[in-house]
Structures are given as C-alpha cells and as structure tokens.
C-alpha cells in the first residue's frame, strides 16, 4: 500500500500551479447549510434552490428581479439626512449617516425607481436594511411620499417593498411624523384609485408596519418574514414568557388575516404582472383608447 503513503513531506504543488477558488464563487445557505454556486443563487432570485430560503437582499437586487432587462431609472436619490435635533448617542448622528453612506454606497434606507415590469410601468420604493437597520427618518418618509406623488401624477401603480427595524430614533418626532406623512399621501393615492401593492420582507417592524406597509390594497409578504409592530424581544420582556413558534412570521399573519398571500421571490415578478393585468391593464387600455 505504498501509494497510500505520502511521497514527500509538505505541499508538493508549485505555487504557479496552485488553483485558486475565487471568493464568492460558492455560497452556503444559512438555513440548510448546503452549498450553491453564487451565480445559480442569483439566477434563482437569491432563493436557495435546496430549501427555498430567501436570502436578505436590498433595493438593487429587487429592482433587478422586477424590472425588464434589469433596466430602471432611480428617482429622488439626491435626498440625504440632515441632523435637525443635533442628536448624539455613541457618536453624533451625522457621523453615523456618513459611515452608513460609505459602508453601503446608498444615500439612505430607501430607493425609488421607475421602470417596466413585463412591459407595464411600475413605480417601486424599496427599503435597504443595511442602511441603519432600514430605519425610517425624514429621508425615507420624503422619498416614499414623492414616490406616491409620482405614481399619482403619472397614473402608474405603486409597489413598496418594506424591510425595516422601525423608526429612526435619532430623528425622534420627525421620524414619528413620517408615519402620518406617508399614510396621508396613501389616502390620496387610494382616492385616485391607483393600485398600491405592499410587499413585506424580513423584517418589517415598528413604524413602517404601523404606516405604509400595512396600507396596501394588497398586502403580501415573502415566506417566513418577521412582520409586527412591537419587536419580539419587547413582547417577550413585557409578557415574561417565551413566544410561540412562528409568532409574527408571514405565515402567522396570513392565518390571522393581515396578509393577502405569501409570495416566493422566484414568482414575484410573474405574480405582480398577473395581479396588475387583472386590476389595472384593462383600465389603462380603456384610458388609452379614450385618449385616442
């Protein structure tokens, strides 16, 4: 069994012959732990092909999934945070913002885009959790308000994709009032009879849940997303008991009657397209023929 023995000590392969596995080629699913080729994962809308686990993605990812040929136009992206309260906790608020911008390459926790979904125009406001926990401050409120205004003025359906830890405390009541602002704007959109689809993703909590996220004509969610008003930790502390399994997950909310349905991200685009074809396309066609 001499072949079983090492011929030489140490590494025999010469450096120039060494084969590199590039970083990010393989991805391990955090749920089922199985490896998947990164490019396969992207092709699969960042959903694990083995266990359907939905990886957390940001606005970039969603815009690419939703819009035809991954083409879209960003809007209102020049708006950035001010520091109206001169808020300081572990460090001054403007520094936190600066760090977040540098780290994420984003200007705040939401981005707004317009583009075409299966040939039909759609405005999307999509939150980014990696920007200070997707927290809602003046910028998020203003951009969502403008997205709603744009949808109303141009007669285009609106999709808001929520992913947020709640209010941005460093803006205190300004942050609170964004709930009022976005809800008031949605009341106007509703009066104009323009569809608003709210997609909740993991996690959607606090002030976002208690304002625009829950106000869709259609409230839908990704599988297993955490959705609630109070965070699980707060509730657990308040009631002094462990929370039941699956509490505040999307499946639980469907059961309790707060979501229309759960949608797998792989089917999101087609589903939105079908939904809009039923409630909206006929209307736009009618309007177009009237204009002719």
């Amino acid at each position, binding site marked *: 069994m001499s072949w079983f023995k090492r011929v030489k000590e140490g590494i025999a392969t010469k450096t120039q012959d060494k084969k590199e596995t590039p970083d990010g080629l393989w991805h391990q699913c955090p749920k089922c732990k199985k490896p998947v080729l990164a490019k396969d994962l992207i092709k699969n809308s960042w959903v694990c092909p083995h266990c359907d686990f939905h990886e957390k993605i940001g606005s970039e990812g969603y815009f690419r999934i939703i819009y035809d040929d991954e083409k879209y136009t960003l809007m209102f992206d020049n708006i950035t945070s001010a520091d109206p*309260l001169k808020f300081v906790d572990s460090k001054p608020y403007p520094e936190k913002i600066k760090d977040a911008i540098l780290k994420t390459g984003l200007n705040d926790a939401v981005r707004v885009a317009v583009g075409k979904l299966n040939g039909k125009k759609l405005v999307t406001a999509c939150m980014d959790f990696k920007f200070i926990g997707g927290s809602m401050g003046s910028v998020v409120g203003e951009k969502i308000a403008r997205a709603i205004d744009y949808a109303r003025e141009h007669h285009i359906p609106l999709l808001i994709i929520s992913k947020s830890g709640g209010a941005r405390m460093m803006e*205190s*009541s300004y942050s*609170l*009032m964004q709930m009022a602002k976005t809800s008031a704007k*949605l009341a106007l959109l509703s009066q104009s009879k323009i569809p608003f689809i709210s997609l909740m993703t993991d996690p959607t909590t606090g002030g976002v849940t208690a304002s625009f996220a829950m*106000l869709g004509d259609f409230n839908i969610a990704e599988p297993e997303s955490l959705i*609630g008003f109070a965070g699980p930790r707060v509730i657990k502390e308040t009631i002094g008991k462990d929370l039941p399994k699956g509490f505040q997950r999307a499946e639980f909310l469907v059961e*309790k009657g707060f979501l229309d349905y759960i949608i797998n991200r792989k089917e999101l685009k087609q589903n939105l397209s079908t939904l809009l074809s039923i409630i909206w396309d006929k209307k736009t066609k009618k309007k177009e023929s009237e204009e002719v």
Partner: protein
Amino acid sequence: MMLFDFEKPIEELYKQIEKAKETHVKGKVNMLDTIEQLEKKVVELKKTIYNDLNAWQKVQISRHPDRPYTLDYIENIFKDFIELHGDRNIADDKALVGGLAKLDNQPVMIIGHQKGRNTKQRQMRNFGMANPEGYRKALRLMKIAEKFDIPVISFIDTPGASPGLEAEERGQGEAIARNLLEMSVLKVPVVCIIIGEGASGGALGIGIGDVVSMLEYSWYSVITPESCSSILWRSWEFKEKAANALKLTSKDMLEMQMIDKIITEPTGGAHNDPETMYKTVKSELKKILKELCETDINKLVNKRIEKFSNMGVYNE
C-alpha cells in the same frame, strides 16, 4: 400630595406652614400673617422651580399620579356625555375611551387614552396602552362623527400602544396605520390635545388633527426616554440624557412645527390645580373649534394633509 425630588425645597415650606397652623390652633397665637407669607413663598418658589425644568422633569410631571386624565377632562368640561363602547369585532378596549358630548352647545365626539388611578384601575386600563380594538373603536367613533358632521376631540395620554401577544395577533400595526390614513382625510374638524404622555405610534394613532396642541408639561416623542436609553445606550440609566436628546417637550415640538399650540398649565402643573386646567382647556377648545367649524371642510382637509406632508428635515 406627592412631591418630586426637584420640589424638595417646597416640602420644607409646607412643613413650616403645618407647624404655624398647629401653633395657631393649639398655642392660640395669631400666626395668620406668617402662614400667608409662607404660602406666598410657596407660590414664588414653585414659579421659580417650574420655570426652569429640564426635559426629564417634565416627563415626570406628565406622569404625576394626580394628573387629570381623559375622563376627568370629559367630566369637567363637557356635558351630556354618552360613552360608546366596542369596536364591533373583538372587544371594548378600556385603555381608549370615547363618546358623544356637548361642549356648551356644540356637539362633539371625544376619543382619548385612559389611565387608571389605583392598581386595579391601572390594570383594567392597561396603563393607557391601547390594543388594536381600541384604535378601531376610535375609528368607528370618528366615522360616526363624520356621518353626523360632528367635530372630533382627541385626548392623547399613552406610554405607547400595547406591546402584547394579542395586540400583535389582532394587528396593532394595521390598526394604527388605518387610523393615520383615515384621520388624514376625515371630513370633520379634528382637534388633538396631548394631556400627558405622547409616545410613538400609540399616540399618533389618534393624533392626526387640524390643530394638535400640547399641555405645557406633556411630552411627545417617537419612543419613551427609558426605551430610547435602553436601545441606544444599552441601559435604562440614561433616561435623562435620552429625554433631552429626543427634544420631546412642548416647547421643542412647537419650535420644530410638529404641533400647533401649547396650552399653558397652572403653576406647579395640571395636578396642582385641576380646576384651572379644565377652564383653560375648555376655553382653548372653544376657540379652536369655533375657528375650525367656520372653515370649509375641504380646505381644512387639504391643509391637514399638507401640514403633515411638510414634516421632516433633509438635505437636497
């Protein structure tokens, strides 16, 4: 009466007054002048102390156990109050009360958070923390008001919406969100007064009004100072710092234009002289309602939406 730490100098004077009274009665010495002088001193001292309160002290005043609550204002300002119960779906929320009444001759619909005075009541009222059915009851009453063209008055006094298992099951977020949307386009005048604590979505859930006013020592913020401290500083110890940083006092809120008006409290706070407080609130309400009822309702609604749409500070 319960005194705060920062009121301790007054306590000393109270003791002296007590002694003087005792001497006057038992010692048969005329102490009336002394008593009068001491009482004047108390008033002066209170003025000095109350003119120089920090944010955290105001938060403490807003929670004074003797501070008037919604039902006290209803009893002392309005007549013919008929309480209306239930959301027609789940239950009647005791933490958020409401009903029809008259303000002199003006019919009004009142909604408001209600706290309890003793342990039993506090439990029944869930410390003024409403459940979804409370917000839905409030909306039901507002819709009735809209139907019969009656203005709405909302008294806000809550440490936040109830963070419980049932509240989540029954859609706390949806209930508050629905109220925000519906109140912003409600076709009757809406007046909101923060009479004590105004914390987070729980307060805002009945807080969209044409005129939003705050009692002088009430507060309004996205979160309680304690919770803010525990999240940002990871300890409850920084509540004073948090209270300051959150800019939650009536003065701050008016400066930032997130409320429309401050209603002055009697020296020593509303709990010190409830009668005066009721009178002030009543006359303010009458003034505000008169103006609002004279304005065209569509204009009022547009202005309401515009007001909330303009809230926020950002760079562009």
